[in-house]
């Protein structure tokens, strides 16, 4: 089992794609350390015979019919795009 100091904040911030400042890293590591310390108490619970609950009243296989329906028009879909051109969103090069 992990201990609160297992939180490698550089690694996790990288996974989360958030550029933290070194101040934030120090502060969050401490604050989250407190929270994780508090959460340690969950280890006391005997869950050996217990199934996980993904959500309270489970639904299974909620299908929709494969029928075309009106969709959001392109102009609306792009209304909030930071940079756009020719019905496309402009981004920096991703492939060299």
């Amino acid at each position, binding site marked *: 089992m992990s201990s609160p100091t297992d939180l490698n904040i550089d690694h996790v911030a990288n*996974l989360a*794609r958030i550029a933290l400042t070194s101040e934030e890293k120090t502060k*969050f590591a401490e*604050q989250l350390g407190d*929270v994780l310390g*508090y959460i340690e108490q969950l280890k006391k619970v005997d869950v050996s015979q217990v199934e996980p609950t993904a959500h309270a*009243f489970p639904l299974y296989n*909620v299908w929709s019919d494969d029928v075309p329906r009106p969709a959001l028009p392109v102009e609306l879909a792009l209304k909030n795009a*930071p940079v756009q051109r020719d019905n496309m969103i402009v981004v920096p090069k991703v492939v060299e």
Partner: protein
Amino acid sequence: MSSELFYKTAAELATLLEAKTLSSVELTQAVVARTKAVDPKVKAFNSFDEENALAQARASDNRRARGLAQGPLDGIPVGFKDVISVEGQPLTASSKMLAHFVSPYDATVTRKLKNAGAVCWGRLNLDEFAMGSSTENSAFHTTRNPYDLERVPGGSSGGSAAAVAAGEAIVSLGSDTGGSIRQPAALCNVVGLKPTYGLVSRFGLIAFASSLDQIGPFARSVQDAAIVLSAIAGHDPQDSTSFAAPIPDYRAELARRKGPWKLGIPKEYFGEGLDPEVAASVQRAIEFYRLQGCEIKEVSLPHTEYGVGVYYIIATAECSSNLARYDGIRYGHRSSDAKDAIDIYFKSRAEGFGAEVKRRIILGTYVLSSGYYDAFYLRAQKVRTLIRQDFLNAYKEVDAILTPTSPTPAFKRGEKAANPLAMYLSDVYTIGVNLAGLPGVSIPCGFSQSGLPIGLQIIGQPFQEAEMLAIAQAYEQAHDWASRKPTL
């Protein structure tokens, strides 16, 4: 019953509108004027559009003149927490990430309220991305508690609660993931209801934790909450987690259900950390029910102490996934400082998100990461099963459960902001309800010596909102806390 229009209930106003002694334009003008008068102090709103609201009001009056009024909400100004999409209006989540975002479509609840003729009024402040218990995490400003402007209104739906308390909206919508409707309702002397998970569609609600989030009403009476709930509830094919349960006319059901009821009092909710004045008010409420002929039974919810821990694993895990979409590419803030595509993600998210949001994403990412998933997330999901079973076991013996909503009345701005864990613990009585997917409502049940509102929470059985509301109304009919308005 108050004489000012902006303090009347939706039910009272519907009677006046139907009699045509009042127009929606007059009512909306009164609400707008009230907002302009007090919101500089209360700061409930992120934005509002007066012209747009009056145009909707005129449309309502036109419908009514042609005999086409849609029901009790036609012409009534309804406030919206700024996470619920209203086409053409801002949708900011009180975050820099979405500061300039404009909704391209209506949420399902918005569409339903428009069909009911409601006037969609304003964008109400919240803790950023619905993460918080005080509205202090808003990237824009902190809403004040109308009963004491030095104190918080609660959160995350602080603006929605404060607006209804202060007469800046007749009713409003909020969202509740760990208590974000019920707790601010308790702190602001209003009714706040979280439906059973799946009763109300989440389509068009900015997602925080998908297995916990629900939209619900704030109102000044149980009857008004029932009216709004009937309007917004119902199966939605666009939300695959919504339930196909028939929706009763909750207002009509109130008249039919009179008790007496078997009410459970969970011993774990009356221990350490509960403010003595809150405990006393809630005990007086329990005594009221006993004197009405209800059977009051002590029950045990033995896994209560694990609720906050379970929640802060599951909710943060789910939010780390839900907030991955804010990457600066298709919408939202894009950093102008990025050197390549991946850097856009790192910098846009660093610049767009506030501290609490970052903290929760980091924690959620960690508990889901390789090597830690079983120890944290899977374990939390199993304890969640036990928490849910505690409630279902109690419901073999009682019809509903009574608890305090919040362990304390409203706290001062800044008092808990520096200590995330202390802030998280203020959700202790509301959080289990979300984990178990149950309905819960907070109603006013008194004031502290210093004039701060106190709330009573009634937790219902799954999809039994009608019974839960009837229990709530039984108390409300004998106690007029709602008339004690804030001094603004």
